[in-house]
Structure formats: structure tokens, C-alpha cells
């Protein structure tokens, strides 16, 4: 038996209230008012497809050692690097053992995640070991566009293998068609689409039934027996319409979270799957569709384990962890959509010294410190001489992963002088419960409740963006526990 062994998700904390988009733009396009219900998940300035993917991975697998899969597939159409394998950054941020690990970026389509999942299942079926698919999306949208209203940011992760299965694969079908509901050309920031009615009638309503019909035939499953129908689309009525056409019960149709998250692009099939797996009962059939230049359709049957297993937070947890954002300008600023005066302090040269980055990647990518073999003192960064003045042993430290560690804030400030995309810049001394301490950046701080003693966990985030050279550096930041 092969199937899903773990799943997880991540949604950025900020939830932009769609009303503010409409308030700013309805003078220009009054039609936007009709889409202005609810909220959408919005990346902080220091989040992107890679940082969200890291969170989704950790949500699925935790941060304990020994979770390295045989293959890591990262699906997205908004990866920060066109030539620097993004999944490798993710692998190091997860501190996966690189001794025998396949990595792959899967991109260029809204069905890249389901296609990656199909390939992951084949890897598992071939007996190569568990494969982890992570899908993450942070798409740029034009001001006052329909997409701005509909798209949201998020990530999900699904691990597949032959071990303890939560949902077994029943069957799958993949049918490519060069149907261009929208596209984004090389070097372009934004999607260009076609009339919705055409996309619905010629696209969804014809392409999806063909693939799903083939799958149900192949699997010998009746549409009426489907308990969860995952049909990602930004068209509100399409999932229900398709269900009706296919004979899938209404109750099985999965809410696309348009008013809570927005459509998270390539990540959306896995995000919705992760959500339904939280709710699935043993025996439930889950039909997952990926749509984009054709259609992937995958059918899973939940096992008896599905009810016992839970991700760290899961979609439900992340949905509940949102904080409303009503500042449209902040959304535009974080996404670089404004020709904004950032001040002279932002102009400092941000060259990435790649050789130094490479030497220090255990610290910067993986947040690995050292533990002294003689006095057991944990320290970060790892150094030749032990930091404990009573010890001071030379080259005594073993690598000590600290990404999963919690700590407390000993000192801090909210700095309004230093340049930050989201001032004030919070940073302070984090003292880890396992020992070790580091003066480090904080993010996602609530000024009203934050103070010395706050409990924090650490998270992989963007540290600095070099707009001049199109590079970004990552490091770990502390986030207060909520």
C-alpha cells in the first residue's frame, strides 16, 4: 500500500481585509466591490515561497531529527530563484540529511503540486522511500486587479510512502491540454488571463469531467461515494457545478477558502487536501484535482489512522491564527508594488558574499549551533573554543540543531532608526531553553503584549533583499508564542 503518511500547512499570519482593496480601488473598478468579502492570507515582507514551504514542512514532520525523506519536491510558480534550486534551500532549512536526498523544483503550472504528488507517489511505489511534496505560493498581482482580490499566500506539505498510511492511493489520471486560462511569461511579474465564462465553460466544465471520469472508471468508484472533492479554483461556482455534473454529493465539495485565505495557486490543491484530511473519517474517499494546462486527478481512501494523526497546527490551526490587516498600503509595500521612498538607510549595499554564505550555511540555512562534548554547553554560532569560561575546550563541539528549540526573550527593543520594511525592527537576546543564546531579529511581534520574558520559537525568514542584484538572504527570526 502506498499513500499519504503526513501532511501539514502554513498560512501567513496577516489576513488582508478585502474591503480595503475595494475601498481603495472601487472608484476605478466598481466591480471589485462584488469580490470584497472576507480576507486573504498575506505574506509579511520577510516571507516567500521558500519560508512558507519550510513552515509547512515543519507542520507536517515536526523538527525532530530523522525525518529526511528520500525525495523532496517543491511545487510553486513563484519561487524566488530561477536558477538556484529552491528545494535545496528548503532541504537545508529543514536540516535534512543530504547523504541521499533527491530534490526537485516543480513549476510552471497551477497543477505543479498535483503533478509533483503523482511523481512522489511513484517514487514511493518504486520502494525508494518516502517522498515529500511541498507546495508554496506567493504570487504578485496588479493593483485593482481581480487577481488581487482572489489570490492569497500559503503553503502545504504532503508526505507519501509505504509506511503508516493515513490515506492510500486508489488511482490517478493525468491529462495535459494546452488550455490557457491564464499565463505568466518569463520575466513578467503578473498573470494575464481570459474571460471567466470561457474558462469555466470550455475549461473547467469540460477538462475536469474528462479526467475525473476516466479516474473513476479506472478505479471502479462511483462519484456518489466521494466524501471530499478538492477542486481548487478562483471561480466560486465551479466546484459545485462540477460536482453536480459528475454526480459528486454537494456535501463533498470543499470550500475553496476564497474568503479566508484566497487562492494559493499551485499550493491550493495540497492546502485543501490537508484541510480535508483533518476532517476525514476512516474509509472516506478523497478526490483531488489539479487544474492547469490539463488536469491531474488523484483518488485517496482514508485509513483508520487518519483520525489519530494530526499535524502540528494544520490548516485549521493556521486559519485560527490569523491577524486582520487593514492597511492596503502595507500589502502593496511588502510586495514591492509601490515606487516607495525607503530612505537613505535602505540604500546600504547588500551584496551577498557567496563564499562566506556557503561556509556559514549550517548556521544561516539550518540554524545549527554547537554542543560542547566536555561541558555540554550549547552555543550558537558554533566556535573553536567553548564559550563556557569554566571550560574553554578546543574543537569540542558537536553540531547541535536549534531550529526546533524554544527560548525566552531576555532583552529587546523596537528600533525605528534602522531600516526595516515593516518598522519598528524588533530584535533582542533570545535565551534558549536548551542553553545557548543569540542576539537576533524578531518578527510577527504584537507590540501591545510583547515584553521581556516572552516565549519564542525560531523560524526561517528573509533577512535582507538585494533589489539591485535580485538576491535575498535568509536567516532565522524569533516569533513570540501565541
Amino acid at each position: 500500500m502506498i499513500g499519504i503518511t503526513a501532511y501539514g500547512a502554513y498560512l501567513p499570519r496577516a489576513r488582508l481585509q478585502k474591503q480595503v482593496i475595494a475601498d481603495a480601488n472601487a472608484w476605478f473598478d466598481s466591480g471589485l466591490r462584488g469580490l470584497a468579502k472576507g480576507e486573504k492570507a498575506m505574506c509579511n515582507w520577510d516571507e516567500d515561497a521558500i519560508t512558507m514551504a519550510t513552515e509547512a514542512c515543519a507542520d507536517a514532520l515536526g523538527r525532530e531529527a530523522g525525518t529526511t525523506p528520500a525525495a523532496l519536491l517543491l511545487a510553486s510558480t513563484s519561487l524566488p530563484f530561477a536558477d538556484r534550486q529552491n528545494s535545496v534551500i528548503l532541504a537545508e532549512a529543514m536540516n535534512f540529511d543530504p547523504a541521499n536526498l533527491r530534490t526537485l523544483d516543480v513549476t510552471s503550472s497551477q497543477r505543479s503540486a498535483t503533478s509533483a504528488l503523482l511523481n512522489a507517489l511513484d517514487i514511493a511505489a518504486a520502494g525508494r522511500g518516502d517522498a515529500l511534496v511541498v507546495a508554496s505560493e506567493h504570487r504578485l498581482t496588479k493593483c485593482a486587479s481581480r487577481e488581487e482580490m482572489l489570490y492569497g499566500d500559503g503553503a502545504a506539505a504532503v508526505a507519501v510512502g509505504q509506511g503508516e498510511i493515513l490515506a492510500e492511493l486508489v488511482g490517478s489520471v493525468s491529462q495535459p491540454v494546452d488550455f490557457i486560462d491564464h499565463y505568466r511569461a518569463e520575466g513578467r511579474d503578473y498573470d494575464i488571463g481570459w474571460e471567466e465564462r470561457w474558462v469555466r465553460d470550455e475549461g473547467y466544465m469540460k477538462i475536469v469531467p474528462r479526467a475525473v471520469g476516466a479516474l473513476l472508471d479506472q478505479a471502479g468508484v462511483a462519484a456518489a461515494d466521494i466524501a471530499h472533492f478538492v477542486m481548487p479554483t478562483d471561480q466560486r461556482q465551479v466546484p459545485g457545478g462540477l460536482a453536480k455534473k459528475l454526480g459528486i454529493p454537494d456535501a463533498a465539495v470543499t470550500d475553496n477558502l476564497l474568503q479566508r485565505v484566497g487562492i494559493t495557486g499551485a499550493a491550493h490543491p495540497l492546502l485543501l487536501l490537508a484541510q480535508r484530511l483533518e476532517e476525514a473519517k476512516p474509509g472516506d474517499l478523497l478526490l483531488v484535482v489539479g487544474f492547469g494546462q490539463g488536469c491531474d486527478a488523484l483518488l485517496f481512501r482514508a485509513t483508520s489512522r487518519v483520525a489519530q494523526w494530526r499535524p502540528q497546527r494544520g490548516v485549521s490551526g493556521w486559519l485560527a491564527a490569523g491577524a486582520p490587516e487593514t492597511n492596503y498600503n502595507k500589502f502593496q509595500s511588502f510586495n514591492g508594488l509601490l515606487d516607495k521612498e525607503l530612505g537613505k538607510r535602505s540604500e546600504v549595499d547588500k551584496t551577498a558574499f557567496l563564499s562566506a554564505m556557503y561556509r556559514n550555511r549550517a548556521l544561516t540555512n539550518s540554524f545549527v549551533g554547537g554542543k560542547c562534548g566536555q561541558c555540554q554547553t550549547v552555543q550558537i554560532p558554533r566556535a573553536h573554543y567553548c564559550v563556557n569560561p569554566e571550560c574553554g575546550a578546543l574543537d569540542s563541539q558537536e553540531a547541535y540543531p536549534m531550529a526546533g528549540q524554544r527560548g525566552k526573550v531576555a532583552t529587546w527593543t523596537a528600533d525605528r532608526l534602522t531600516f526595516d520594511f515593516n518598522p519598528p525592527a524588533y530584535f533582542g537576546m533570545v535565551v534558549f531553553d536548551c542553553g545557548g543564546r543569540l542576539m537576533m531579529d524578531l518578527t510577527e511581534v504584537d507590540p501591545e503584549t510583547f515584553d521581556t520574558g516572552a516565549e519564542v520559537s525560531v523560524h526561517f525568514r528573509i533577512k535582507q533583499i538585494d533589489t539591485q542584484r535580485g538576491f535575498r538572504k535568509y536567516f532565522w527570526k524569533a516569533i513570540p508564542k501565541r
Partner: protein
Amino acid sequence: MAKGIRDKVVILGAGCSKFGERWDAEPADLMTEAFEECLADAGIEKNQIEAAWQSTGIDAFSVGPGAMPLSIALRLPYIPVTRLENYCASGTEAFRAATYAVASGACDIALAMGFEKLKDTGYGGLPQRSRGVTNDLYYPNLSAPGMFAQLAAGYRAKYKTDKQDLKRAMAHVSVKSHANGAKNPKAHLQRPISEEQALNAPMVAEPIGLFDCCGVSDGAACAIVTTPEIARSLGKRDLVSVKALQLCASNGEEGGFSKWDGSYVATTRIAAKRAYEEAGIQNPRREVSMTEVHDCFSITELVTMEDLFLSSEGGAVKDVLDGVFDADGEIPCQIDGGLKCFGHPIGASGLRMIYEMYLQLTGRAGERQLADPKIGLTHNLGGFPHQNVVSVAIVGRYDA
């Protein structure tokens, strides 16, 4: 065991430029201003100087690396000139180098010159700069006030100090320095402020407001040192000698181990203990007449009072509010206005402090002259509270 530097070297002359936003001045102008005053005070010819040290903190924003800027600006006669940089302790480092050179007998007369040209950046505050290729990969996104604000958080947590009480004590520190600066014609900021102004100023880095920050200034300060014997032979009376010169650099323990609680500066305590021992001071609160400490931010000065053992641990808030360090208090602090109001051209600051101590000890401090001071202490703190270099210098009357 080494006997230390006490009374081996005296200050032959000292000089200081006007500090401030010297839009008019090149570094060479600032140096010349300080040097001409110093040379006249020393009563020697330029060619009697046998070696010189130049301190500049941020070379990229003033004159570039190396020691030629000093040598060329003053047309020094092909003598050994060395540039020193050790964060905000740079000025005291130059003084230490010149003093040690004289004490060793390697030369008779040496010059220490510190300067900084900070106001060519186009924005307020210190220049943005790299902390080093690797450090930049993981150091937080910091400004200087942000780093020193950490002290306030640590102090507040340790002593359960009310946020407003601490803020009020910080305000008192600044109000006092502004009052002192108002009596100093060379100071950058010469206007007195009220406690309300300090309390209500725009926030820079919680809880540090604008008036908790020192001036970012252009300026130069220098001193010429020699032996007591040579000073006497040149007709000098009322000699001011070096009693102690100590330096302490963090080794990463405060920032990387588990003992330090963020409420004090460990290196200041170590350097102060050594300096008191070197100077033969048993009871600093009684024996030190006055101090010039590194008040880059008001909270730094407050904590430094404890770290120099002038206030008890946790006692600085009360001492500050009681006026112990005011101009008419028990141990006046920043009688010249301090970094706060005299200004903080980084490389010059340590020497500016020595300059003021020297003026006070020779009774030439004008309107701000203290009554009969005998021992002056200067303190610099460069870097961050958890990772820094601290200098403590003690000077006093040679006959005291």
C-alpha cells in the same frame, strides 16, 4: 607583577575643535583646530613630536584607512604615525598608545589625535555600515540606539523597575547633560531641555527617545603627552598625570553563554576594577572627583554608574534622580555636556573626555569649572552591551 602606568606620563597639552554639524569643515580643518590649541598649550614646536597616533572609528565615511590623513593634515615631520580603530574606544586607544610609547622610553613626546567626520552621510544618526561579511549574515537588523535599548529591557527585568521610573531617570540624565552643555561653547548642543521634552520626544528605539541619544557630530580632539620630568623642564606647573589606562574586550561570553542578564556591561566592571587598582583608588565613590562616561544613550550612562561602582547595583535610578551626578552633585558626570551634548565624533570622543578632565584639573574649564577636582575618570564603550570594548582612563593631579 607590572606596576602599571600610574604617574609615569603627564599631559603636556590638549586641544579640541568645536564639535557639531561642521558642514564647513574637512577633517583636516578639524584636526588643525584641535592641534593648534594643543600645540600652543604644550608650548613646544611641531618637530618635537616624535610619534603620533590617529584614531578614527568609521574610516569609510571620513578619510579612508591608514594614518596619512593625520600626517598630511598636520604636515608631521616624517615621524611614525599609526591609525587606531577600536569602536568607540578608539580615542582612548590613541591616548593609550601615545602614553605607553612615552612610558616605555621609546620616545619623549607623543601625540594622540582623534577625529571623525560623520555629517557627510545625508541622513541623521550614525552611518549605516557593514559589521563584517559573516556577521552581517546573522546579526540582527540593528541600529546603535536599538542595541543599547537592550540594556533598558534587561535592567527593567532584573530590578523590576517601573517602565516610567526608568524613563524618568533616563530623562534626568539627558536634562543634566543639556544643562552642562549649555555652558560649553565648544559643545554641539548648547540648549537646555526640560524633563517633559525628554520624556515626550519621538521614540527612536523603545524606550530610547530622541533626547536619550547623543549628538552625531564632526570634531577632533588631541593630547600631547610626555614624562613629568620633561614637562617640568619645559616650565610646566600643575601637572596632570595618567593614573590608569585599562581596556577590556568582550570574548563572546556575555552574548553566547548563560550568565549575563543584560542589565549591565560586564567589560566596564572588569576594566573599572583594574583601573582603580592601577590608580590606587580604594573607594571610587569618595575618591573620584568627576567622570566623563560613554553616554551614547542615557540608559548607558545610568547603567555605567553602577558598572563603575559609583552607584550600588540597582541603585543608579535613585542616585540619578537624587542628582548625585549633576554639576552640583557628589560626582559630576559629563560636566562638559558629554557625548550627549558635546557630541560624539567617534574617534575623537575618548580624547575629548581627556581634554575636559585636563581643563578641569588645571582650573581652566571656565563657566563649568568644578571646585578643586583631583581625580577624573573617563570611560568609553564601543560596540554593543553584549559584545564590546570598554576603556577606562583615570587622570589626576600629579602631586595628588
